Every structure is written in structure tokens, then in C-alpha cells.
């Protein structure tokens, strides 16, 4: 049982959840995740950790309400608790002195890439931040990046802020720089990571992604999280979640993520009707 310290919707459909988890806070590194079970009947869902406070013994998650489990989490308030919060799981994002690192965040990935950008900045890298969203009002935490990022770009699909269009406009962002970044890190929904990797592969820029397959245990026991990287099968929970975006078999990955779409939607037919209010925030995955 982990106590909820705070749960707020920070932009439509996107929630911030701070949980009491002192042992995890002490151990967590950028890029790692936890598995959360909202209640005793709950599904185990993996969520990246977007921030933590060792002193207070808390961790913060940014999650998007997409289905039943995140729906339950979205209904929590301070003082409630979740049945499970286990971690930190997965490997930390590789931190090194790369030179210029472009951090691309969309959807919940704006939150999860924040500690990565912070750590890379501490390590002496120049940070270029790219936000991707449907519309400007879905971008959050921009202030957190301001004093660490040398430059901030924004791509919105409706053009309400920055460049108008899809993540494929990343090419234009890169061309707008005096020289291409030495490394690109992408966090967020699967399409964002897949398309960004496609763009950067053509440009030949090393790109890492934090994969988000379906998981159960998160410790290498079930194999549901397997992904083909460079022709070999990896378990994302223990071998990743960070992988070389140019080596991931994205077609297989996208198919595997949809394994339970039918069942997940039938859940809504069976459970109490619960209106999902802010659907406009849903990304295209």
C-alpha cells in the first residue's frame, strides 16, 4: 500500500500522481519505471517516474487516462492509497557526456523525459528540448525545462504553438540547428517514438527510445514485454526499457501493443458506465 500525496489533472486527460514510496525514491534513476496496481482487483500497469524527492520519500508519475486502470488512478485523491507500487524497475537511461542531446517528449513522455534531461544537463550536455502535442494547451512542465535547455522547440498538430504538423517535422527542427545533435532521446507514445526514430535514422543521428510495451510482472518472468531489437528478442522490462530506436522492429511492436484492445474495450461495456471526460487529450496510439 502506498499513500497518495497528490493527484491533479495538469492538462486535459493528463494527471500528476505523487505517491509515498521512500525506498523507491532513494533508488530511482532517470528512465526507470514502477508498476502500479490501483486497487486489489487492479491490473499491474507500468508507469515511468517523472520526479522524486528523497527527503519527502515520494515519487511523481505523469499518466494519461486511456483505459480502465488509468481511469481508476485518475479518480484518486490525496489520502487514498494504491494497492501496489513496486520498483524501481528497468534500467536507467544511459547518461554520458555526449555533447548536444535532443530530448523529445510528447504525451506522458514530457514528464518522463524531465529527469533524463536534468541528469544529462548535470553531466555537462547541452540540452535541446522538443515538445510534441496535439495542441499548445496539452503541453505541461515547460517551465521546468527552461533554465536547463539551451533551446526549446514545439511541434503542435494544430499549429497553436511552434511548428505546425506531426513529429515528422523533427527533420525541420534538426535542420534549424547549427549542427545536428549528437544524440536524440524520445519518450512518449509509441507512434511518437516510432516516427521520430524513422526520421533520425535517415539523418543518421543515434536515437534512443524508452519503450512502453504491455507488461505484467516487470521482472523478466512473463515475457509479454518482448520486443525485437536488432534481430534478437529482448524483454523490455529487464533488458530495457531504453533501446536503440533504429534497431527496434516497430511493426511488431505496434502489433504487440494492441493485443488486448478488444478485451480492454469490452471492459467498458461491462463495467459501470464511467464517463471519460477529457478525451481530446488522447494521442494517436
Amino acid at each position, binding site marked *: 500500500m502506498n499513500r497518495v500525496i497528490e493527484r491533479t489533472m495538469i492538462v486535459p486527460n493528463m494527471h500528476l500522481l505523487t505517491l509515498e514510496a521512500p525506498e523507491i525514491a532513494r533508488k530511482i534513476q532517470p528512465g526507470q519505471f514502477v508498476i502500479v496496481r490501483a486497487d486489489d482487483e487492479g491490473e499491474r500497469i507500468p508507469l515511468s517516474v517523472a520526479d522524486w524527492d528523497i527527503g519527502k520519500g515520494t515519487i511523481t508519475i505523469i499518466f494519461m487516462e486511456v483505459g480502465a486502470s488509468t481511469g481508476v488512478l485518475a479518480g484518486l485523491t490525496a489520502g487514498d492509497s494504491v494497492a501496489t507500487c513496486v520498483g524501481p524497475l528497468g534500467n536507467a537511461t544511459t547518461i554520458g557526456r555526449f555533447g548536444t542531446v535532443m530530448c523529445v517528449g510528447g504525451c506522458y513522455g514530457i514528464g518522463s523525459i524531465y529527469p533524463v534531461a536534468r541528469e544529462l544537463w548535470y553531466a555537462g550536455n547541452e540540452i535541446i528540448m522538443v515538445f510534441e502535442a496535439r495542441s499548445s494547451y496539452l503541453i505541461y512542465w515547460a517551465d521546468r525545462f527552461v533554465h536547463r535547455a539551451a533551446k526549446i522547440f514545439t511541434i503542435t498538430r494544430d499549429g497553436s504553438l511552434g511548428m505546425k504538423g506531426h513529429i515528422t517535422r523533427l527533420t525541420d527542427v534538426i535542420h534549424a540547428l547549427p549542427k545536428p545533435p549528437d544524440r536524440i532521446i524520445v519518450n512518449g507514445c509509441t507512434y511518437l517514438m516510432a516516427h521520430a526514430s524513422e526520421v533520425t535514422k535517415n539523418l543518421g543521428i543515434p536515437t534512443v527510445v524508452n519503450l512502453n510495451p504491455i507488461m505484467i510482472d516487470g521482472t523478466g518472468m*512473463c515475457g*509479454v514485454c518482448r520486443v525485437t531489437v536488432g534481430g534478437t528478442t529482448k524483454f523490455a522490462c529487464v533488458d530495457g526499457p531504453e533501446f536503440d530506436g533504429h534497431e527496434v522492429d516497430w511493426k511488431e511492436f505496434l*502489433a504487440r501493443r494492441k493485443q488486448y484492445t478488444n478485451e480492454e474495450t469490452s*471492459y467498458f461495456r461491462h463495467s459501470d458506465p464511467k464517463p471519460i471526460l477529457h478525451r481530446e487529450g488522447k494521442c494517436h496510439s
Partner: protein
Amino acid sequence: MSEEKQGKLDLNRHDMPKQSPEMRRHNFNEVALGYTQELAVAEAKRCLQCKKPKCRTGCPVEIDIPDFISYIVKGDFKSGIKKLKEKNCLPAVCGRVCPQESQCESQCILKNKGAEVAIGRLERFLADWEATQGEVDIPLKAARTGKKVAVVGSGPAGITVAGDLILLGHDVTIFEALHKAGGVLIYGIPEFRLPKAIVAREVEYVKKLGVNVITDYVVGKTRSIDELLKEFDAIFIGTGAGLPWFMNIPGENLNGVYSANEYLTRMNLMQGYRFPMSSTPIRKHAKVAVVGGGNVAMDSARTALRMGADEVRIIYRRSHSELPARAEESENAEEEGVIFNMLTLPVQYIGDENGWLREIECLKMELGEPDASGRPRPVEMPNSNFKMKMDAVVCAIGNSPNPLVPSTTPGLETTRHGTLVANPETGKTTRDRVWAGGDIVTGAATVILAMGAGRKAARSIHEFLTTGKQ
């Protein structure tokens, strides 16, 4: 054996009532219903009370079998269960899942008459009887020693170590990665073979003895063994063999191809069969193939039937007589309608344009010379390829130890199979103050062997904690 005893030989082994195959393949309730009191006493009476009981030599924890059986004959079930528990702290589990036909019962003197005493069923009877008696007696605990022991993993090995050491007066904390304690007993073995309420009861029991059970705690991640050693005087590692093997054949990552661990975990730990009442989905498939021939394969196949599949096949590369599963379980599976494709090896999985499994391609095999395991080696028959339409494949070809703890613990030596190096008599590993036992040491084995290893390790840990010797 005396003459007069031979005269009274009763060769009528009593069957245990079961749900009928037609009925049980549609529900998740326990298949075997257990002996009634009358049946138990009748079966117990068949035991010859051998002076040198051979059955005992077949039990890895050397239960005093004739002795506990004699209490059933007398109707003194309380003393019977007490006797049993001296050696086996999980009788309700072992009575159900031990491979008795190759252990205790295989050695029974009546075996050569084809009528071995049903030791496992009697064991189960006593344990189930005890459960109906309300509160279980809590044995007397030794005075507290102030020593602290951490047990990593809550499978049968870990539960045994914890139960033994708490009674000896030590403080014991179990750390379990999943949200429920019990190991394979809770996440792997299905409800219809081992009701989860029984496992929960055993876990409650060690808690009642005073063991602190911390779930949702991954040792090697949340804290390392070295960090635990700062707080605890000794550590027992019982993390099992939870890493699923795949065959590395084309198409293995198609949707619809599962590891048995995934399939069974969704069903058991996450209660997927109750979806959408529970919240973890499991897909209903019409045609399911299960690759492998052990208990894990039988459990997966029978689960698929109960999920409503029309056709479930076991695909095994050797023949019927080499099936590693308990005889009772493969018979149950067959009765329920599982089809056995023996001497068959999948070589490729073929999917549709959306990435879902549609067909599996197999090769026919024949048996050759015995291999290292002593079993005939399956040899591929050239050009014998054929295809079967299938919606799902469950891969149940084996598991090896999860490397998480060994890889985060410097100095903890492993074998080339990934198992931990440990003294077979004491469970002592290559690290100071660290013991191990169960599947993490032996590779995937049995509940009773894991328990036995736990017991030996507990003895050795106790010796260390009281004398400093390790």
C-alpha cells in the same frame, strides 16, 4: 512381511472422487474432491505398517509415512497432522501436487502388486481435515534471539525457511517481488489443481507465527542483497526459476504466442478468467497449441480448455512415455479432451497481416539413442513438415532462474545454467551469510524438493546464528 499380514492384503486402492471430465472442463473448481473420512480410513487400513518402510525412502523430506497413516486408522486425525507437519509444513500442497508416483508411492511395498498405498491422498486428507477445524494450533516458539533473517522469495522454499526460523526464535522478513506471496503455487499452478485459498492459508500461517511478509519488493532493484546484509544477519535466496524459455524460431513474437508464465500468471495471479470482473484481460482462443510435456504444459492446456477453446493440443517432441508431467495430470488432460500430438516439433509460427498467429509449422520426430538425460533423443524426420491452423501457442518448454539477484550480487557464484552454486547439504552459497535453495539452485524442480532445501538451509542458518559457524 509376516504371513498373517499377507493374508489380509487389501489390493483395492481407493480412488479419490473427482469432478467428471465433461463438467470440470467448463469450470475452474478443483478437479479432485479429496477422500471422505470413510475412504481415508479404508485406504489407511491398507498400509502394512512396514517395520522398514520403503515408502519413506521415496519421500525427499522423509515423512514418517506409516506413523501418520496409523493415526488415520485410529481416527486420531489431530495426531496424524501433527506427525505430518514435523517433516512437511505444506501437506495440503504436497498431498495435491507431489509427483507421488515417482516418489513415496513408487517405493511402497504394495507397488509390485499394483496397489501402492495412496500416500499423497491421505496426506491431503489430513491437511484438509485440519483446515475444517478452525484455528490451526500455533506451536511453541523458542525465546527470541534478536537475530534477523531476510528471505527473498515466498515460494515453498522461502515459506519453509521462514516458518522454521521463526519457531527457532529469529526475526524473519520475507521479501516478495509480486503482490501476492506463494511463488509458483500462487502465480503458476492453476486453481483447479491447487486452490489459491490453500496457498493463502499457508501464507497466513507463517504470518501468524510472526513472519513479516513484504510484497511488492524486488530484491536486486528496490534493495540489493548487499544492502540487505547491512540490516540482516543472514539471507536466504529462494527466488525460483521464473525466466521463461522460448525456442528462438521465426514468428515467436507474434500476437497469440505466449510463454506459459504469461498465460498462467494472467489466469492465476491476475485472475484473468474472471475478466471483466477482474481487470487483467486474457484472450479467448478457439484453437490453442501448447508446446511441451511437463506439468506446466498440462496446466496451460487444461486452462485453455476451461477458457472455452474448442481444440487444445499438446505438442511434444518425444513420445507419451517420456512425458515429464505427473501421470495423473496427463491422464486428467486427456480425459478432458486435450489432444496429444507426440513426436512433433514446431519450427515456425506464421501470422496474418496484423501480426496475429494463424498457423504453426511442425516437423515429425522419431526416437533415437538415449541422450544425456537417459531419455531417447528426438530426431527430426526430414521433409516431414506439416502445418496446423492455430490461434494461440503457449510455450511451456522450460524456465531457468531469473538472473536479477545473481547479477546484482557480486561474488555470488552461478553455474553455466544460471543456477546458484550452493552446498547441497546446507544451502550455503559462495557469499558470506547468504544461503539459497529451491529452483534457483536446482533449476525447475518440485515443490517438495524446494521445501526440503529450505529445511536444510534453515538448519544451517540457525547453526550460524547461534554458533557463528557457516
